[in-house]
């Protein structure tokens, strides 16, 4: 599963040097000069793909985007075949985003260039987990140690559907934080505890003790395997009875924000459903480090690409 703490901290320290670098000689902008990073996105994601692109370009690499496979891949060419073709074009690293769990790993096993998992189904999204840890460490003033010991992080909402939750859970708990997953049983099944977190169903009981509250997007499209509705269509899924019932128990409203621990942070991996899992005023409020997460994403991905390409 997760990387060991010293590896995570090495990557995070490197991300910090990337974030702190000033333009000019001696900076990172020539580190990957002449290299090409391919973003192989079988599933659409503008924000993650752009973050990887910016990170690669900040290192001087060229970037090619490969997307919109949905139809051709389902016709028979395997995802691994596609990746082998991309590698044969002569790229130096591949980032992979896929709708199904395990795809990045299958591709990494098949190609010889470095592969970054940019999110696979409901499984993992490792650079998101890293950037969440970075943003939290930054907000908590722990950029020197990247030690999250003593911090309690509540991850709230649609845990079952979330690769972000799995990676954040792995990363933050490895770095010392106590992670609590909170949601209704259908979205936060008690079995998640086996993954190294505590599982609670009462957000109001957890709220006063959390140093950070990370809200997750409700992923209607992944409920019930999305077989009945076109993917991405928000609809009552049977996993939650209604939006208002979910909000009554689990949305981060202004009223709930007021009951958070003093100095506690609000996080969200995006994209947000304002007014569903999080109120707009909270997302934009003083506790929010949501945009810091996005900024950290570029630095973290720079560190990961540089590390994997051995520079």
């Amino acid at each position: 599963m997760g990387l060991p703490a010293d590896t995570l901290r090495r990557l995070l320290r490197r991300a910090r040097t990337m974030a702190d670098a000033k333009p000019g000689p001696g900076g990172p902008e020539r580190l990957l000069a002449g290299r090409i990073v391919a973003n192989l996105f079988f599933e659409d994601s503008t924000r993650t793909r752009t973050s990887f692109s910016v990170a690669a370009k900040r290192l001087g690499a060229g970037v090619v985007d490969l997307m919109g496979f949905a139809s051709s891949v389902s016709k028979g060419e395997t995802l691994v075949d596609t990746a082998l073709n991309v590698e044969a074009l002569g790229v130096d690293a591949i980032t992979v985003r896929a709708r199904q769990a395990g795809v990045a790993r299958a591709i990494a096993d098949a190609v010889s260039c470095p592969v970054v998992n940019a999110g696979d189904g409901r499984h993992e999204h490792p650079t998101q987990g890293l950037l969440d840890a970075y943003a939290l460490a930054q907000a908590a003033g722990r950029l020197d140690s990247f030690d999250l010991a003593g911090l309690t992080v509540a991850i709230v909402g649609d845990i079952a559907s979330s690769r972000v939750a799995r990676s954040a859970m792995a990363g933050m708990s490895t770095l010392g934080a106590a992670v609590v997953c909170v949601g209704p049983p259908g979205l936060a099944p008690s079995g998640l505890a086996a993954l190294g977190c505590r599982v609670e169903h009462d957000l109001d009981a957890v709220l006063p003790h959390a140093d950070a509250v990370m809200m997750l997007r409700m992923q209607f499209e992944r409920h019930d395997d999305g077989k009945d509705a076109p993917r991405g269509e928000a609809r009552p899924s049977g996993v939650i009875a209604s939006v208002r019932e979910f909000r009554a128990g689990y949305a981060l409203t202004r009223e709930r924000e007021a009951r958070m621990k003093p100095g506690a942070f609000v996080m969200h991996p995006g994209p947000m459903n304002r007014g569903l899992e999080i109120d707009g005023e909270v997302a934009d409020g003083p506790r929010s480090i949501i945009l810091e997460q996005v900024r950290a994403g570029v630095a973290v991905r720079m560190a990961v690409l540089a590390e994997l390409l051995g520079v």
Partner: protein
Amino acid sequence: MPSLLIAGGRLLDPASGTDHPLDLAIAEGRIAAIGTPANPRLPHGPADRVIDAQGLLVTPGLIDPHVHLREPGHEHKETTASGAAAAARGGFTTVCCMPNTSPPLDTPELLRFIADRAASILASDLPACRVFPVAAATKGRKGDEPAEILLAAKAGAVAFSDDGDAIASAGVMNRVLTLVKQTGLAFMQHCQDPTMTRGGAMHAGEVALRLGLTGWPRAAEEIIAERDTRLALAVGARYHVQHISSAGTADILRRARATPQGQALITGEASPHHLTLTHHACESYNTNAKVNPPLREQVDVNALKEAVADGTITVLATDHAPHAADEKALPFEEAPMGMVGLETALPLYAEALVHAGAITWPRLIALLTINPARLCNLDALGLGRLAVGGPADITLIDPDLVWTVTPNELTSRSKNSPFLGRTLRGRAVATVVAGTVRHEHPR
């Protein structure tokens, strides 16, 4: 047809309770004599060929009541011929093929097509075995209305099943059981409530949660088994639970068999993979371990072994389910379910049950011969036992032969086994069907 003498082996025939060093003489496709080594009374003079069975078990030909031979419609995965060859190499002299083909085996005409195929492969001199069809219980296997069950029985069906899917409607199930009862055959259910398993890719447990895969919970199997055993006992129909995966289902079967009609009407089977593997085999998204019902936890594995040991589960079945390599190369969530099993089953059964001390070899052989023969009414043909005058279907087993599973070792058209690379102990070294040696392992 050359006569044959199998000499010097340990002859196991659970149907008659035989477990002795005995020689066995075969002529004209039938068992001509069974005798002590000193006096093998062969009626027509010396045999054309003598097989030295020193150190071997000599058993009735093994019977697998649950395989998928993919014909018609999916011949790139397997054919009747390639599947029967794999069966012979695994020690099976008879297999019963499931009707989830394309089109499904839901008419007498399609059942006769299987019978024709079966006859033609036995007429060849390739490795082969007897093949009997299990007929679909509902039209198109859709679970909506009963198929022509009475005609199917006349056309050679040895059981009924919509395997691959359960009959979800209790009302339809009740009508099917009523019809099946009239045939004297058994109904075999793939117990899976479809409303609980949509998108289910593996056992609903820790590994599925970690891998981000949709779970297929035990209860989805158990509630169908519970419903059906009640229906079958009420109707008085013979009912068989296929490939039991959950400890709870074994309990349901145990309770059902404890009722007055239970022993006669209700049976259940276990498969090699459910006796030997857990959901951890799916780690790393190993699609060869994706199977329906899914691999579960050690408590389930243990419960299945106990259920075999205490006589709750009386039949073993491979659920041999070939899939092409490119199909299994799909992402785990999209890869088809199932694994080949015919060529690895015997040593896996031995490992899980005999070497582990749960049961003895004679009991294992009963689970692989006379019990499945009775399940499919094949005992009426004399299959599943060793009797003078009966069909000479015989398997010779080296219980201690150690070998490693490799793709080259498998003759099935598909190689989707989670046991590739595994070293196994025990192997069928000769398979005799109707007096002809259809497979022989070089010794």
